[in-house]
């Protein structure tokens, strides 16, 4: 039996037979729609670019080839939500009479042959057909596309290497950030950067079928493949045991005793804080979102990069980001221990109250971060206060409705090799959480002056905050009505 074919079959079955995939018609439809949309978009963009560049002094493919690095960075980023690393998949086969190296080789090979590596062809094929055929004919197109595919393979193994390392220590994120940062520095700091020329030569080499260019690319692939293979081989034990070095022995434990005075809700608030700070996925989300919010706050306060509508959007973004990250999957983390919660009286109601309190209080952080912008006169205090009240009021009210419908467990400690993609409904709600407040803002701004709009927002926000107990109770009752369906969903999607 061919191990490679067996693993390929298992990989397909794993996706196809995932209980959540089976259940969610909407998610399936969403995936197909998005794939079709992006494919169409890339074809359109490839064609448009080819025609737009035809009047330039240099050939269109020269211009495109000089910027291949940007395509690779984009490809690296888009792999994040979709691609697994082999370390996670090794587990079921580890005790079978198959050499571990061979197993990893097969999984790496499978990843290399994945159709995802051809996705950029939607862009490159129309572009090459229009531009490359002029001087190099069909042969030129074929060799060019082969070269592009090889470049995607380079990216594939480079990504797997980074992702595997990041799975062990999040700080390995600095590796791709550092590498891309260094490349960007070399590209943009000197007046005549050699990177653009090198990139053009590589593309030209592919078009001309230069054996040296292909050999060089293959050597880079081999280099990344072997490194990834070595690293994955070493990391397999950690993945199998699901043990994170830092959590085996806890150095210090925060008790958050000050919350004890709030009784049962206070206990759930403590639990929520521990959930956020003791689990890999949540910690990472906090750090990343924190970084983004700080960056935007600094940009708004000390530069004039963003003006008008964009500035309004970013101010709102700062206030809404944490809520979207954690509330679109509300109850998803609790899915890991939902049976324990459900066997205790009204625990879900107390949990919802605790969550609401924590995330509402959390709004103080973006408010504090906006102080420099207020002091610098870039944003008014009234605008900041309007978001400070409106987001936990109206937006959180909308997001807490997801507690009734979410029934997919989010693995709290996946090592970035598993996928924690939101359902279609979650993505839609997240999108609406951004869109609705902005639409409302722009509509009201067309009718009233800025201060009046801010006061209206504050009023709406406070109204929802003041009545939170009522609507949280309603959410709880609706959750209880759907509890069997939700519990089944949580159990089915739990990673064990």
């Amino acid at each position: 039996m061919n191990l490679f074919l067996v693993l390929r079959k298992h990989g397909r079955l794993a996706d196809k037979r995932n209980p959540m995939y089976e259940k969610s018609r909407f998610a399936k439809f969403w995936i197909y729609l998005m794939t079709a949309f992006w494919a169409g978009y890339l074809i359109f963009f490839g064609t448009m670019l080819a025609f737009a560049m035809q009047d330039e002094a240099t050939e269109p493919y020269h211009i495109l080839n000089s910027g291949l690095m940007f395509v690779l960075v984009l490809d690296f980023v888009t792999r994040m939500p979709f691609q697994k690393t082999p370390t996670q998949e090794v587990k079921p086969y580890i005790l079978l009479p198959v050499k571990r190296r061979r197993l990893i080789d097969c999984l790496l090979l499978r990843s290399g042959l994945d159709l995802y590596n051809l996705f950029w062809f939607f862009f490159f094929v129309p572009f090459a057909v229009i531009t490359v055929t002029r001087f190099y004919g069909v042969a030129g197109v074929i060799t060019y596309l082969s070269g592009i595919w090889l470049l995607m393979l380079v990216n594939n193994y480079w990504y797997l290497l980074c992702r595997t390392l990041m799975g062990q220590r999040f700080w390995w994120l600095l590796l791709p950030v550092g590498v891309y940062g260094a490349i960007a520095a070399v590209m943009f700091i000197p007046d005549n950067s050699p990177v653009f020329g090198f990139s053009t030569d590589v593309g030209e080499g592919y078009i001309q079928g230069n054996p040296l260019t292909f050999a060089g690319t293959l050597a880079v692939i081999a280099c990344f493949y072997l490194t990834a293979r070595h690293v994955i081989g070493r990391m397999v034990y950690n993945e199998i045991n699901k043990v994170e070095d830092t959590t085996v022995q806890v150095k210090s434990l925060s008790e958050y005793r000050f919350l004890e005075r709030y009784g049962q809700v206070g206990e759930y608030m403590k639990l929520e804080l521990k959930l956020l700070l003791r689990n890999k996925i949540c910690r990472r989300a906090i750090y990343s979102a924190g970084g983004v919010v700080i960056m935007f706050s600094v940009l708004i306060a000390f530069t004039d990069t963003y003006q008008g509508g964009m500035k309004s959007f970013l101010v709102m973004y700062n206030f809404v980001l944490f809520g979207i990250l954690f509330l679109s999957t509300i109850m998803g983390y609790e899915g890991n221990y939902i049976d324990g919660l459900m066997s205790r009286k009204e625990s879900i109601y107390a949990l919802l109250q605790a969550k609401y309190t924590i995330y509402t209080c959390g709004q103080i952080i973006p408010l504090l971060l906006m102080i420099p912008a207020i002091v610098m006169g870039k944003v008014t205090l009234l605008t900041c206060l309007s978001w400070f009240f409106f987001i936990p009021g109206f937006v959180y009210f909308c997001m807490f409705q997801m507690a009734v419908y979410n029934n997919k467990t989010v693995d709290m400690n996946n090592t970035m090799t598993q996928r924690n993609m939101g359902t279609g409904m979650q993505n839609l709600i997240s999108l609406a959480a951004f869109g609705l407040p902005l639409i409302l803002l722009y509509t009201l701004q067309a009718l009233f002056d800025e201060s009046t709009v801010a006061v209206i927002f504050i009023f709406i926000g406070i109204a929802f905050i003041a009545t939170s107990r009522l609507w949280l109770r309603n959410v709880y009752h609706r959750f209880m009505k759907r509890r069997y369906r939700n519990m089944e969903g949580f159990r089915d999607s739990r990673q064990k």
Partner: protein
Amino acid sequence: MIQITDLQKRFGSKVAVDIKNYTIHQGDMLGLVGNNGAGKTTLFRLILDLLKADRGNVTIDDIDVSRSEEWKSYTGAFIDDGFLIDYLTPEEYFHFIGKMYGLKKEEVDERLLPFERFMNGEVLGQKKFIRNFSMGNKQKVGIISAMLHHPQLLILDEPFNFLDPSSQSIIKHLLKKYNEEHRATVIISSHNLNHTVDVCPRIALLENGVIIRDIKNEHNSAEKELEDYFNIRVEEETAGEAPEETGQTPMQETQETTEQTD
């Protein structure tokens, strides 16, 4: 205490639980036995309202479990590690559970004392999150947390699983004592017939979701009946194969077979 009436649960075409009428009285200590897939865990989930019944209902002290949550305040249960909040340390988890039932920290600490031997110095003070404990120690945390608030109804699914022989012996003793001292209703399921017979004065035998026998077990009198039942099952499955001379009692042989099929 517990009244099961016309309870039915199906998974597709398979009937997981089908019980016409069954009563468990206050202070009963009931063992639930049956082969894999007999419906033991499903029955527990139905009693605890963690699963929707297709038909019929379960009442605890005349409260329909699917219509009110009142019964939860005097019920304790542990089915699997889906009950554990694994990013807490055992101490934090016990204190959290205690708080849910209105117990102070000191009270929780005091109530943990009888479990000291059971924990064997491997649970408390380890500075580890529950997720980093062995399955056996996770099982201990789950069992203790279910008993911490002194529930009048205690439900444990396979409590002997993952435990070492000494811990199995200790938990047997603890459960018996708990049942006697608190006059609590205790329901356990187990594949370990020896332990079930040792601990439970009443044993329900489940087959394909149906309670086919309700056995009164005085001085291990159920042993013979269960032996006969499970030996028939084994014989059916190994039909045609000549039994080997092992020198073991039929109960021991049954035990090993059922454990292997786990």
